[in-house]
């Protein structure tokens, strides 16, 4: 451990070393900024790098520490944010041309909380436009590459965050997950990603995609780092009416707990599909063995409505998005088309120019699903199926404490491989989507590599507000299957 390079430290190690004055925040931040400068031209995990801002923040942290004050648990440690979180005065693009130069007048709750914890903000991570995508290829700013193989995608939509964490261009980051956007890229980049219970993390200041599904959560290189970061960003915020006012437990303490007697459910529907790659199946089986070796018990469960999850999701999410994205009309902020002769033309052209194809596709699907005469058949029906999916999980959690599934059906695919076929792309999220529909928490934890050296993640799901159980089970897998967490960045 003595010669581990600075950037490879875990979030908790880095925080401890700053706290114990083994390293200054300036040095620590300098190492990360140097790493970004060297690697980001290849990986392109950042839309905006805050080189000067981070250096200034680090200097301020050092000064305060010299006077005896520590801001919080992450004092002086570089952390990044997906470019979906509003940051006061710092450009927030959401991966879209329509917000290319948008400077928010306020900080998102998540941004406030990581800054209050002492984090140094490295910059804003690339993402699929408005979080719509599974590969980070729909970003207006160009794709992010998978640091394990730069010819491949990092997953998405929080691909920039997962890639930045995997390539050690920050110690951790916060992403968002609407249908798998934290867990799938975490799996594909070999890092840990947590989608908390709906209502656990405030959505205030998180640019909305699908309001009833969106949830912010940590992406980090270890389970303990993810647990610590969730502990900082979780908790009640009165500015989000859907945020739940229940105490935040000590997630870190849960990581080391034994799994003896833990009931691990295997939802059979998740293992029956044709799309599951044998290598992913084998890796997840290893994860299961790791749990049973430590005393967990296996139970088979059924989630009978799983096959309807994808279509349900692709009605609810676009419907909400069609309304959420209507505000980008060129009137008050963001892109505005030049030279329009009237209001309707200005708005239409602004949106035609400002949004990419995938966003337009979903706005159209969603607008259709909400239209008079179609509402009951589409949106209304989808809401009913959503209830059935939620009930499936409630029933499954009577028999099991956690469910173990693959996170994604395959390891990272190649850039451009699925961009021409949206439906195939949508299938990347087949294992992650039901969790969002049910509002339950999920985690993706690395559990092996493919024969091509690509990371594979296992997904664990639990009852609402039982993130501790996820950390306990993921911690056990992590201890049994120690895999390399920092990507070599190879082409």
């Amino acid at each position, binding site marked *: 451990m003595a010669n581990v390079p600075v950037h490879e430290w875990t979030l908790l190690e880095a925080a401890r070393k700053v706290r114990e004055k083994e390293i200054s925040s300036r040095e620590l931040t300098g190492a990360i900024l140097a790493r970004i400068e060297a690697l980001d031209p290849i990986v392109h995990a950042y839309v905006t790098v805050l080189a000067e801002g981070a250096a200034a923040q680090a200097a301020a942290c050092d000064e305060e520490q010299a006077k005896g004050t520590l801001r919080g648990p992450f004092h002086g440690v570089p952390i990044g944010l997906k470019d979906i979180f*509003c940051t006061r005065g710092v450009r927030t693009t959401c991966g879209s041309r329509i917000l290319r130069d948008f400077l*928010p007048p306020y900080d998102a709750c998540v941004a406030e909380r990581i800054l209050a914890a002492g984090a140094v903000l490295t910059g804003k991570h690339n993402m699929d436009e408005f979080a719509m995508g599974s590969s980070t290829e729909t970003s207006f700013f160009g794709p992010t590459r998978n640091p394990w193989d730069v010819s491949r995608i990092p997953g998405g939509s929080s691909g920039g965050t997962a890639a930045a964490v995997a390539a050690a261009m920050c110690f951790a980051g916060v992403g968002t997950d609407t249908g798998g956007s934290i867990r799938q890229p975490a799996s594909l980049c070999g890092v840990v990603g947590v989608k908390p219970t709906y209502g656990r993390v405030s959505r205030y200041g998180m640019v909305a995609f699908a*309001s009833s599904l969106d949830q912010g959560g940590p992406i980090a290189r270890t389970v303990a780092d993810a647990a610590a970061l969730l502990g900082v960003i979780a908790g009640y915020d009165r500015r989000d*009416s859907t945020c739940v006012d229940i105490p935040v437990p000590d997630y870190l303490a849960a990581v080391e707990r034994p799994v003896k007697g833990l009931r691990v459910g295997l939802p059979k529907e998740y293992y029956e599909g044709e799309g599951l790659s044998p290598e992913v199946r084998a890796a997840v089986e290893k994860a299961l063995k790791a749990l049973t070796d430590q005393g967990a018990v296996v139970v088979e469960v059924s989630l009978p409505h799983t096959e309807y999850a994808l279509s349900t999701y692709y009605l609810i999410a676009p419907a909400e998005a069609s*309304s959420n994205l209507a505000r980008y009309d060129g*009137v008050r902020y963001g892109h505005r088309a030049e030279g329009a002769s009237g209001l309707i033309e200005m708005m239409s052209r602004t949106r035609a120019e400002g949004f990419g194809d995938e966003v337009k596709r979903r706005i159209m699907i969603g607008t259709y699903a909400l*239209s008079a005469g179609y509402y009951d058949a589409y949106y209304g029906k989808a809401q009913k199926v959503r209830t059935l999916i939620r009930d499936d999980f409630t029933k499954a959690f009577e028999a099991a404490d956690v469910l173990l599934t693959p996170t994604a059906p395959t390891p990272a695919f190649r850039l451009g491989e699925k961009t021409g076929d949206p439906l195939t792309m949508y299938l990347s999220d087949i294992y992650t989507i039901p969790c969002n529909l049910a509002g339950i928490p999920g985690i993706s934890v690395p559990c092996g590599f493919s024969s091509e050296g690509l990371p594979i993640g296992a997904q664990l799901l639990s009852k609402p507000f039982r993130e501790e159980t996820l950390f306990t089970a993921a911690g056990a897998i992590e201890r049994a299957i120690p895999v390399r967490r920092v990507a070599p960045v190879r082409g």
Partner: protein
Amino acid sequence: MAFETVIGLEVHAQLSTRSKIFCACSTAFGASPNENTCPVCTGMPGVLPVLNRKAVEFTIRTALATSCAVQRRSVFARKNYFYPDLPKAYQISQYELPIALGGHIDIEVDGGTRRIGITRIHMEEDAGKLIHEGEFAGAQASLADLNRCSVPLMEIVSEPDMRTPEEGGAYLRRLHDVLVYLGVCDGNMEEGSFRCDANVSVRPVGREAFGTKVELKNMNSYRNVEKALEYEVRRQVELIEDGGEVVQETRLWDANAGVTVSMRRKEEAHDYRYFPDPDLLPLIVDDSWVEELRGTIPEMPAEKIARLEAQYGIPRYDAGILASTRALADFFEASAAIYGGNPKTTANECVHWKDAVLAGTLSPETIAHAVEDRERGTISATASKKLVELVLSTGKPFRTLRDEQGLTQLSDASALDLLVDKVLAASPKEVEAYRAGKEGLLSFFVGQVMKESRGKANPKVVREVLKRKLG
């Protein structure tokens, strides 16, 4: 063929909360453009609405005062449409599940009472305002003022129960009084705090099915509502009599031209793509809150009129004027409590000095003292009016002024005896003539005594004394 008119009204009332319905911005009228705005009400990316509890409370109180059933669970929905005064491109409004259903208010027309049903009451946010004038960046432009965005509104939808424009006007006035009584709306029509749209149709007398309805907008006073309804009813009847058909559409009232003008046809109506707002949880109102609020509902205008009439024995008409403004009725009762006397006189005084009463510059004591002194004959009606005016201009108490100004009337018969004797002594011929039967001369003597007293004598008492002395 005789036609019957069918009218239903939709009132948008601004709730008098200090802050907006989904953010903490001020609702104050008259701020400079975009002063009362924040990221939430200007629809910045990432913002979320948080419901104002006071706005819910005000709506529940309105529901209780109009005998509506407060719904335990109601839901906010998004009404989606693009317009530059609507920053989120959707208005948050209750749609399928409003907070209150099925109430009524009673109105008085032609001396009788009619009950007008209330279909529903729901809560929603207001939009901003566009100013289509001036130049901007070298080009003709429209400017958006978002101060009104997210100002809380309550929409009160009536049943199609009104049969004449006058009933429409009476309903509006009564509803207005109820809201102002409750203190949930300032009722200011000019500032847009109380707005009304109307649905109007006609049908041959005796037919049960409704005719095709037309929605009327842009009527900003009671008078305009009545005029617009009268015009529209006439237009529809003439159209049908000429063999035409009424089309379902929205029409605007043009107050200057005195006509309604077509704005959009049914087929041009928007598809608002309503769906429940996922950013807001269903609104759950528990019974204990409703019961707590029920205790805060003051006496409503109709009840107050009946009570004033019965309790004080004043005419219903007077009671109606007093009850039209809660503050005026309260003032009347406060005055009447200080001096009982004849409440009709007190009522007259309250109505006469209404502006000062409502402006808060007059105290109930002033009116009570004025009425008491007059009824006891201490001062004359003229002096009373003069003294109240002095109270208003100087702020001094009524009776202090009365004594300072020497406006006390001579009502003491013994004091008047001297004056009367003096006058009679100076007019022996007239006295003789009177006694000979020319009784019309009594007024002459009264006039002389009044003159002698420099107007301070109480004419009534003077007359009595004269009669006694001459008789």
